[in-house]
């Protein structure tokens, strides 16, 4: 299985600012994903991070608000832009070697917006 390192683990930010979350995988993976999870709730997929091309966003999520980079097969970043209190959540990165295969998750970034 893959080890996923995500940082920062938590942050408290001012509204209107932006934060970039990093996700590092200890081996090359085909697929990387970004999710959002409200405490005590289920996970919602934000986007699939594609290596060498633009991310694929789910309905309700747009690139201007959540720009994603994936420069290689082991690393991805998610930026939460122009943050508001509604963006307070847990953001999780995951990775998989293939479609239809299990995903491996980082421990998440707990983000609070004041």
């Amino acid at each position, binding site marked *: 299985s893959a080890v996923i390192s995500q940082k920062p683990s938590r942050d408290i930010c001012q509204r209107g600012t932006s934060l970039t979350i990093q996700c590092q995988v200890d081996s090359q993976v085909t697929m990387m994903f970004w999710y959002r999870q409200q405490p005590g709730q289920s996970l919602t997929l934000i986007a699939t991070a594609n290596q060498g091309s633009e991310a694929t966003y789910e309905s309700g999520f747009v690139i201007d608000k959540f720009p994603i980079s994936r420069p290689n097969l082991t690393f991805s970043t998610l930026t939460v832009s122009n943050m508001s209190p509604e963006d307070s959540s847990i953001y999780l990165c995951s990775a998989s070697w293939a479609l239809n295969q299990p995903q491996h998750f980082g*421990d998440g970034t707990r983000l609070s917006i004041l």
Partner: protein
Amino acid sequence: SQQGEEDPQALSIQEGENATMNCSYKTSINNLQWYRQNSGRGLVHLILIRSNEREKHSGRLRVTLDTSKKSSSLLITASRAADTASYFCATITNFGNEKLTFGTGTRLTIIP
């Protein structure tokens, strides 16, 4: 939107008892997966069961799948305090969009 709904939402049992969680989903699937999430941590994959399989075991875990009823169950036998966590089912559909869609989750508490 949620593909799966889990039942019960919360479950408390005594250590040593068996815990059963159920997951229902709406559309045809390629496979169904179960994940565990300990408080403050990421998700850990437990078992993947394909649409042509009916039952799968891993240690103290037993997963069943009934595609005719669009439902699955996760049984944890001889529960331990360390099993306290949230458990999520997740499905991948057959529609070419192979994203993983998570259920609502069951919060399991094992009472020592």
